[in-house]
């Protein structure tokens, strides 16, 4: 009997590894291997054509003194803060408004409309917005002109370009956060509000005390997802401004692309991608570590 059992255990273990085999092979070749290679390459100087040269930490030392890298890092941080702030705040406000006001069919209509840009490619909408925002023949400046405003060089001045990309990104993604928040709002038990009303709580108190504190897990999840997505921005500035004017909209990922695939400085490009890895690592640790303490879980 005992022998039979252990035979069955063996069979189960065998089966488990067979089921995992495709994933493990793919993981080794396309994720683990390249990650290790990336760490190694970040310590090398390599132009693809000649064999790589081990240079230790010199790539990272160069990054610290690379004025362009610091501009790019600053752009990425400004973009991320602006885009994540906007998409989450507007997404939350719209979710609150839909949750309060809209009955059946309207709720469906609004949800569908706000969500639609989320599933369209960023490349497509970047092309459309590039023309909408054109200084001289774009419809936006045309209508602003009708209202008596001066033309705004949305994409062609370094003052406006990054803001325009932030706006586009928030416009495209706020529907995603709206859906997350709508689901969270619907999971808040109604009795809590009724109890608070009996206690004479104002709408404002109900919002801070019940709604916001009960949706903090979702809010936190949304912020982390948003940060990770925004730090990887590439498509929109690549298509709309090519990083310009000057370096005004060049992001960290655009700089990685530029160094790696235009200047063929592979080692240097990989070492700047390590900075991205570090940022994302910090965001994730933040979620798992600090987040658990701050967030109110049911």
């Amino acid at each position, binding site marked *: 009997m005992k022998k039979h059992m252990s035979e069955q255990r063996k069979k189960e*273990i065998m089966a*488990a*590894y067979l*089921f*995992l085999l*495709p*994933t*493990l092979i*793919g*993981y080794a070749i*396309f994720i683990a*291997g*390249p*990650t290790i290679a*990336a760490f190694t390459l970040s310590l090398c100087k390599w132009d693809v054509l000649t064999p790589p040269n081990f240079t230790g930490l010199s790539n990272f030392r160069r990054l610290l003194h690379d004025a362009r890298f610091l501009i790019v890092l600053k752009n990425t941080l400004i973009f991320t803060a602006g885009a994540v702030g906007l998409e989450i705040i507007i997404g939350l406000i*719209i979710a609150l*408004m839909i949750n*309060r*006001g*809209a009955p059946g069919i309207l709720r469906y*209509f609004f949800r*569908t*409309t*706000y*969500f*639609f*840009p989320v*599933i369209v*490619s*960023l*490349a*497509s*909408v970047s*092309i*459309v*917005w*590039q023309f909408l925002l054109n200084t001289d023949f774009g*419809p936006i400046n*045309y209508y602003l002109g009708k209202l008596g405003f001066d033309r705004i060089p949305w994409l062609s001045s370094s003052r406006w370009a990054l803001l325009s990309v932030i706006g586009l990104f928030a*416009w495209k993604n706020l*529907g995603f956060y709206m*859906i*997350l928040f709508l*689901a*969270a709002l619907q999971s808040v038990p109604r009795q809590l509000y009724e109890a608070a009303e009996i206690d004479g709580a104002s709408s404002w108190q109900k919002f801070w005390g019940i709604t916001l504190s009960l949706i903090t897990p*979702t809010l936190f*999840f*949304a912020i982390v997802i948003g940060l990770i997505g925004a*730090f990887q921005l*590439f498509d929109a500035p690549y*298509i709309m401004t090519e990083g310009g004017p000057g370096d005004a909209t060049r992001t960290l990922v655009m700089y990685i*692309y530029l160094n*790696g*695939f235009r200047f063929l400085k592979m080692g240097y490009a*990989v070492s700047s*991608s390590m900075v*991205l*890895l570090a940022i*994302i*690592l910090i965001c994730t640790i933040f979620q798992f570590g600090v987040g658990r303490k701050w967030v109110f879980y049911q």
Partner: protein
Amino acid sequence: MGFLSIIKSRVKRHKSNIINFVIFLILILGSIIIMLPFLWMFSTSWRLPITSFDLPPQWIPTEPRISNYREVFETIPFFLNVSNSLKVGGLITLGQLLTCSMAAFAFAKLRFPGRNFLFILLLASLMVPLQVIIIPIFILMRMLGLLNTHSSLIFPAVVSAFGIFLLRQFFLTIPDELVDAAKIDGASYFTIYWRVILPLAKPALSVLALFTFNFYWNEFFRPLILLKSYDKMTIPLALVQLSGFYSTGSVSIIMAGVSLAIVPVLIIFLFTQKYLIEGIALTGLKG
């Protein structure tokens, strides 16, 4: 109830009606802002190319013409680009459904040494952004002679830690008794996976399929790096090429191309949005 309190509750109800109406107006205004760019894109795609830059924009083109759409097909191999995107997106989706469901089955329903370790290792890979591994992958594909092939896009994308995580969460909700009962009936693990688990997991599988297909249909960064020739390009890349050709010539032809890419997405979206939205809500609440 006293007279005063009746008035008070009337005023309160009246006030909340006004607030609801204002909210409604804001929501309508917001949806207009969301949809106008698409409307502009579509109406511009029907304008006469020479006058397509003229202002004011024609929201309803005075002389709509289909020639812009014909021009798209003459400038870029659009049908080929669509079939490339279908091929890449479709095969990645099929591959992910298979590998992720197999791995998720092992993680959710089988006991084996190293289960937690392997699962954490997989989850950790979610933190490694694509941009860190894209250069090693580019070099690998170059060594294998796979640059400018669809395989270079498909193979690295067939494994997905997100997909495994999503499906595992769903499989955990399927009672173990079902698996045990099948085992007693003498079913092999493969039969349990294929005949018991997969049919029950259809909702989760369709959510993963929709997410994955949409993501790779829209993908831009990897195709930009790994593909070179026009006949291999997927739709987003081809549209950027088209936009480059005509950016000073005619915006109407570019918008015809973008419309061709977006209108099918809109139609599919109207049918599948329920699953997409439920999927996002589910991952959000679980996260």
